[in-house]
Each structure stands twice: as structure tokens, then as C-alpha cells.
């Protein structure tokens, strides 16, 4: 896809941003999870929210939240055909890509979720359509995110259909039918 001509940054300030530090930003109790406070400034946050509010990108209504997808339509079978990001969101994508998360982390898909006050999201994993890494920028409100160990569902508790299946140590079966899989976080 041809890139649009370079334009002045609209939502993020130029200049370096404190990168991920896997020691300093590590969570307790849960390995493989990291938290960077103040990844964007209050002014940047304001500009991002304004840009999203001003955009005419359609939302998909999910009841207690609504969402937009950018970057293409993920598909396990055919693969995703990349589509360009809106410029403001592409700035953020570039900042996340440059956040020291990994040389092999080049995010190409963005799920924008707007949660109404008081709403939540049921237990899920992000699944096999994606490489096993995700970065979530939160704006405008706090929310508690709970993590639940996958192993050994308790009595009377069913593992959600469509959840990924462990087949062999360290290897996971990809979802061949591209079924319900992608989540939001």
C-alpha cells in the first residue's frame, strides 16, 4: 500500500519516549506482562481522544462497548490484506512499534474499543490469529484488568468454546477455520 505523503504529527509530540524496560515495568505474580505508566502525556491523550471523536470512521456497536478495526481484516486462512491506518492512529502505531517491545514486534492491526462506564468484558484470550504479543494503550478512565490462569477449569466451569487448545508442550494448534478468536483487551 502506498504511504500517504508525510505530514506533521497531529496527536503525539515528537521526540523520544521512554521505552519498555522488562525489569522495571514487570508485573508481580504474572510473567510476560509489563506496564508502562504515562506512555503518552495528558496533552497527547487529549489530542488522541479529540482525533477519534472527530473521525468519521464507523463504529461497530457491541452493546456495552463499541469498536473500530484498523489495519485490515485478520483471517487465519487467507491472511490479512493490510489496509492503511488513519494518520492519527498511525502515529500511535509507530510509537508503539518503537517502544522497545521487540525488534520483531511490528503491530499491523489495531482494535479500538470504547467501553461505556460500568461495562466490562468477559474472560478471553487474544488467540492464535496474532503473534503472541499485544500492546494496549488505555485512555480516559481506569479499569481493573483481571488475569485468570488457563489450566484446570474448576467443576461446573466450562472453558469457552473457541479457546485455543494446547496440543504439545510449547506448541499450540492454530485455528484452521478462523473461528471466534480475536478478542479485545
Amino acid at each position: 500500500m502506498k504511504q500517504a505523503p508525510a505530514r506533521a504529527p497531529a496527536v503525539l509530540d515528537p521526540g523520544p519516549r521512554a521505552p519498555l524496560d522488562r525489569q522495571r515495568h514487570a508485573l508481580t505474580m504474572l510473567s510476560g506482562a509489563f506496564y508502562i505508566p504515562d506512555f503518552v502525556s495528558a496533552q497527547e491523550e487529549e489530542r488522541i481522544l479529540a482525533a477519534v471523536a472527530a473521525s468519521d470512521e464507523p463504529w461497530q456497536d457491541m452493546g456495552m462497548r463499541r469498536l473500530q478495526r484498523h489495519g485490515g481484516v485478520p483471517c487465519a486462512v487467507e491472511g490479512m490484506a493490510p489496509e492503511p491506518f488513519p494518520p492519527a492512529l498511525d502515529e500511535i502505531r509507530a510509537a508503539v512499534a518503537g517502544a522497545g517491545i521487540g525488534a520483531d514486534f511490528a503491530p499491523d492491526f489495531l482494535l479500538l474499543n470504547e467501553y461505556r462506564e460500568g461495562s466490562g468484558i468477559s474472560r478471553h484470550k487474544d488467540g492464535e490469529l496474532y503473534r503472541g504479543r499485544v500492546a494496549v494503550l488505555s485512555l480516559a478512565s481506569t479499569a481493573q484488568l483481571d488475569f485468570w490462569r488457563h489450566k484446570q477449569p474448576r467443576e461446573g466451569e466450562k472453558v469457552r468454546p473457541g479457546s485455543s487448545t494446547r496440543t504439545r508442550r510449547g506448541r499450540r494448534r492454530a485455528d484452521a477455520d478462523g473461528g471466534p478468536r480475536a478478542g479485545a483487551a
Partner: protein
Amino acid sequence: MVLEPRSLLVFEDEAYHNWYHSIEAAHQDTVHARRRARRRCAWRAAASANAAARAARQVASETANLHLLGPTRAAGAVLPRGTRLSLTFRQVRARRAAERVFATPAEADARRRAASQFDDAIFDRGAAPR
């Protein structure tokens, strides 16, 4: 863990593959101290059968990023929820050549709708009215 506005959460490996995540429908959240004694847990578990089941499944009611939160969000702080916007960045496993640019907005919209199946398995919940 508590997601603050303007923060970036990254998860991978163990956290991505072996753990589910969720956000409870609620009007507010409480920052939890680091879990220390078993006794506290027992007290918590005795509070209600629900809480006991939840405590067991959740492994620990401890705010796992307590040490990284801002000064107004110490243990015990109660955080009211508002409208929240999240931007979730991922990298797809499978890509193919870019398609032609969509001829009409309707076509682009239809394409987006085709993606809706991916989210059908996620059920939203609202908190009970105050």
C-alpha cells in the same frame, strides 16, 4: 492489575498463552495491597461463597502493578470508572498482498462487517444500575 489512562500494557508468552483476561462490569475498582498472610485470604474467602470461588480462580486479589501506579492510586484507593478508550495493537500471523483500495465506503464497510465474527464469542456485560 489497574489500567491507568495513558498507560501501555504489554503482554506476551506466559501471560498471552496461559492466562485469560477480563474486565469485571463495575462502577469502580479498588487497588489491592500485596497479598501477605494466608489469614487475610481466609477472611476474604469467608466473606461470601462467590468471593471464595473468585479468589481461588483469580489466584490472588493483588494489584500486580501496584508498584507502578501513580501516587493517588495506593493500596485501598477506590477508582471510579468512566468511559474508557483502549487501543489494542497486535501483529497478525498471516498476511497477504494488499488489496485494491475499496471503491466505495459501502464496500469498505461490508469488509469491516465481515470481521465481526471474530468478536462474537466475547460477551459484554454492564454493571447493575447504581
